[in-house]
Structure formats: C-alpha cells, structure tokens
C-alpha cells in the first residue's frame, strides 16, 4: 500500500496539531494499520518514514515498541483476550481456551487459524476490569463474557455481521 492521497491529506492536517511533524507518527500508524486490514507492512513503514522525513529504522523502532501495532499478517478478525489479573480471576484462561477451540487459532508465534479467519492474541489489561472477562475485536470491547456470549460473538463474526460491543 503506497500512501493514498486521501491519507496524505489527512496526515498533513494531523501534523498541524503539533509543533513538530513526527508527533503525528503514532496516530498515522494506527490509521494505516486500520486501512490495511490490521497490520503494518514494511512498505507502509517506509512510506511513513518518507512522509515524516525519518529514517525507516526509526519508524520501525516506534512501530515495534507498541503492542497495538502488528508487524506480521493477521487473520480477518483479530480477537484480543485480556489475561491480566482482574480477568484471570474471573475465568479469562478458560474463556481463552474456549475461543481457541472454536476458532482454531492459538496465541503464540503466529496466532492465526489455518483458514486465515481468526487471530487470537493474549493482551494485557484493557481497562475493563469491572466487567471481566473481556475481549476486544475490531476496536469494540465485549465485556462480562461467558462461553455462550463468546459463541454468539463468533457466530456474528463468521456471518459477516458487524460485531457490536456488549456494553
């Protein structure tokens, strides 16, 4: 993906919010990742380096520092499962195992199901502690989960219906 003119225009506007251009880098990485189906290719990082006037290794250094940026391909639906303390106390591990069995994806080096539909990730605290356990999919939080609710969520994702946050 070369940066589209629309994204370039958006990032030019973004840079006006700050006295220095590179402050727009992290928000720009987010936009590119969203546009590219959930991960950042080496080409995107190079394009952004060019846009911000930075060395590619500098942009890579930033992108690789932040857990939300994915530098390897991901499945169609990325399911981030919180495994931190408040969720772990309310069954996050059993929930994660259930999700792995249903999707065929397992957190690890790859984490993507053989059919490419799901990537399952372990993530740290998402700030939904009073509504544990939780997962995040496509930017939406799904909270107070149990296996039945997860099955409904997965069915919605499988059918292509937009998965709404269970708030």
């Amino acid at each position, binding site marked *: 993906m070369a940066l589209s003119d629309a994204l370039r225009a958006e990032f030019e506007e973004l840079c006006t919010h700050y006295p220095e251009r590179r402050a727009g880098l992290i928000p720009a990485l987010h936009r590119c990742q969203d546009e590219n189906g959930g991960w950042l290719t080496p080409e995107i990082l190079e394009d952004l380096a060019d846009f911000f006037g930075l060395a590619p290794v500098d942009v890579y*250094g930033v992108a690789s*520092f932040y857990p939300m940026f994915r530098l390897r391909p991901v499945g169609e639906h990325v399911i981030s499962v919180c495994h*931190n*303390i408040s969720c772990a106390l309310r069954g996050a591990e059993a929930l994660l195992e259930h999700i792995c069995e249903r999707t065929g994806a397992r957190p690890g080096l790859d984490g993507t199901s053989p059919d490419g539909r799901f990537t399952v990730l372990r993530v740290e605290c998402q*700030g939904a502690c009073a*509504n544990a356990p939780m997962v995040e999919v496509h930017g939406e939080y799904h909270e107070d989960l149990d296996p039945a609710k997860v099955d409904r969520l997965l069915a919605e994702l499988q059918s292509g219906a937009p998965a709404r946050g269970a708030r």
Partner: protein
Amino acid sequence: MAPKMPWPTYLLDRVGLPDSHKLEVYRQHGGYAALEDVLRKPWKPEEVTAVVKDSGLRGRGGAGFSTGLKWTFMPDPAKDGRRRYLAINADESEPGTCKDRVLMEKDPHGLLEGCLISAYAIRAEAVYIYVRGEYRKSLAVLQAAIDEARAAGLVGKGILGTSFDCEIWMHMGAGAYICGEETGLMESLEGKRGHPRPKPPFPAGYGLWGQPTTVNNVESIFNVPFIVQRGAEWFRSIGTKGSTGNFLCGISGHVERPGVYEVPMGISARQIVEELAGGVWKGRKLKAWFPGGSSTGMLPAAAIDTPMDHDSIKNAGSMLGTGAMIVIDETVSLVEAEYVIARFYEHESCGQCSQCREGTQWLDQILHRIARGHGRVDDPALLESLARGMAPAKTICALSDAAAIPTLALVKNFAAEVQEHATTGRLPAGCVSILAAQDLQEAHA
C-alpha cells in the same frame, strides 16, 4: 451506572443522564459555569492554582501528588516566555483501573471544562489528551465533544468572547503501559518510543518539545471545575485531613458487583467490598486485596477495615495508587496471582534500565516456576533479594518499583503460603488454578 450513594456525590452525578455526553445536557446541569466565572470575573491564573492547592486535591493517577503544588512548578511567565502545555494522562493502564474511562465516555465535557480551567491556571496554549489506543470509544466521544465545544466558542481563539485562547487536541496511544509514566507519555506524544526521561529536568521546566509542561490525570482534572465553583473549604470537608474529596474506586475481581463507585477518601475498604460491591462472591471468604491497582502491595483479609486514604493505606503497608481495588477469594493461589502481575511488568518494561529489564524477567520466571510446581526452597528469599535490587528509586522511572513492591508484599504478608508453594510444588489446599491448563501457552503473540 451510578447508583445512589449514602454520601454526597459529584463526580458521577451526570453519568446516568440520557445523552450525558452532549454539550446541551452538560450545560443544563451547570456545565461550563465554572469556566464562565473564571474567565468573566476574571480570576487571576494564580487564584485558580491557589484554590486547587488549598483544596488538598491529590493526583488520582496513582502517585497522589498535590495537583495545585504541581502547577506552581511551572515557570513564571514574566521570566520565561516559552510556549506552555498541559498534557492529560488518559493512558489508564494500571491493571484493575477502569475509572477514567467512565468519565471520558459519559461526561466528556466535564473533562474538557477541567482542561480549560487548568490550562488557564498554568497559562498553557494547548492541551493534549493522551488516551490509550484501546479506548476507541473514549477517543470518539471526546473528539465529538471537542468539536461541539469548538463550535460553541469554548475551544480555540477568544473563548467565550474573552482574550483566552486554548486548543484541545486528542492524541491516541498504542498500548504501552509505560506511556502512563509522565515523561514516557511525553516521548510517546512526540512520536517516539515511550522511553521515560531521566529527571531532572522535570516536565515543568523541560516537557513536551522541551517546553514547560504539566501532566495531570483525567480524574484529577475532572475535579477542578467543582473545586473552583464550590471552594477549597468544601473540598476539604470531604475525606480526611491528608486526603480530600471523593474518588472513583473501581473494584474488580471476586466480588458480587464489580464496578466504579464514587466514595469519599477515608471510607473503609470493608464498606466498599461489602456494601457497594455486594461482598466476596459465591459466599466465599476474602483472602487478599490490592488497594489501588496491581503495583500496590497485596494486603491480607485482616487489613480490610483500613480506611481508603493515602496515609492509612500507607500505614497498612501499601499504597492507595489509582484506588482500584482487586479482590481475591480463598480459592486463589497468591503466587499465581502475583505471577500474572509479574508477567505484565516483564512485558511492559521499556528496557532502558538493567534493574528493571532483567529484574522483571527474573521475577516473572521465578514466580512462574513456583506456580508451575518447580519452585526451589530458597525462591522466596531470592524473590525478596531481587525485588530489593529493583527498588526503591533505583531506575529512571517507577516501573521497576511497581514490579518490586507487590512482590515484596507477597513474600512479607503471605510468607508461609509462598514458602509452602515453593517447597512442596503444590497449590495451597482448596485452591483452583487461574492459569492456562498448559503452561507453554502463556506467551504473548
């Protein structure tokens, strides 16, 4: 969302209203009146700082430092003509903490009004609200609120027809706990890795882009319009001598009704657990609890009558932190619980300081081997020795302390359980594992 409390409340009073996020609703409930008063009277900036300082408001982001005192560290504008910034720390990432999100999603204008008054007090020309990247709803709601406020002449040039100019910009983080540390936050806002800066210089002298900057937590700033309108004396009438006002207590873990509750400083922890959160779930017994997030030391059940204020919790051997209580029942191995937390700090260490980079890995690995039944007899002593090498204040920032403190609390407050777990290799009697069935599956992708 905000049940009626048996004491006077103010922080969550608007969150249950229909369309509470809209400017119109906010104004109907007295919103922006404090800003109007400050700008039209007009108050001097130093007067705003003075009332906030006199109120005794202590930062709600974890450290509990006086908000007003922090503002006085900003240089005298007569002698230092540089640009000045206010950064709002909305990188809520301390495990157990989920309170700022409620304010941002349900009462965004309350935060914006607090930002504007605070920016006026420290003479900041712009406010950056740094929201953790996962909080997409908070980002969207706040951005819509800023757009509304700008259209109404409340943000930008000549606010409310006065000479006060102030911009408010949203900024999206990307999932790193370390960016909740104020200098890590500033580096991240500048588009870099979130590596905390050595201090001094402090942000008030050398902050965002090298300019004078103050960093405050969302809930701290949310208190400001109330203090300006109702006065320092009113604020000091709530809570204790050393910890004033109400605060948002997020309670999670093994209680019947986890949630975010507005409580006065000094309320007993027991009252929060039993009356607000419905007690320990499933009729079980309390085993341990964190008073204010995962970096505060775990306390035993016997300490549950401790008042929730900075001094009392400190005397009990822990910290009030973010006021996020995590409750653990009798079925949980505390080694397992602490392992989950050590794993988190290992993942989040930025790697600059060796004590933290190496220390968090060792804590993670040793707690892991005890939890998995491969502990050694001297592991508890080793944990303590390592933790003492990581804190206090041995590193650029407090992440190392945040990992060491709960480890030290574990080996001190629950010494017998930890020793027995390490020696026998078995979960304590009556405990059920909270970890994955297979230990090879615990890694992050």
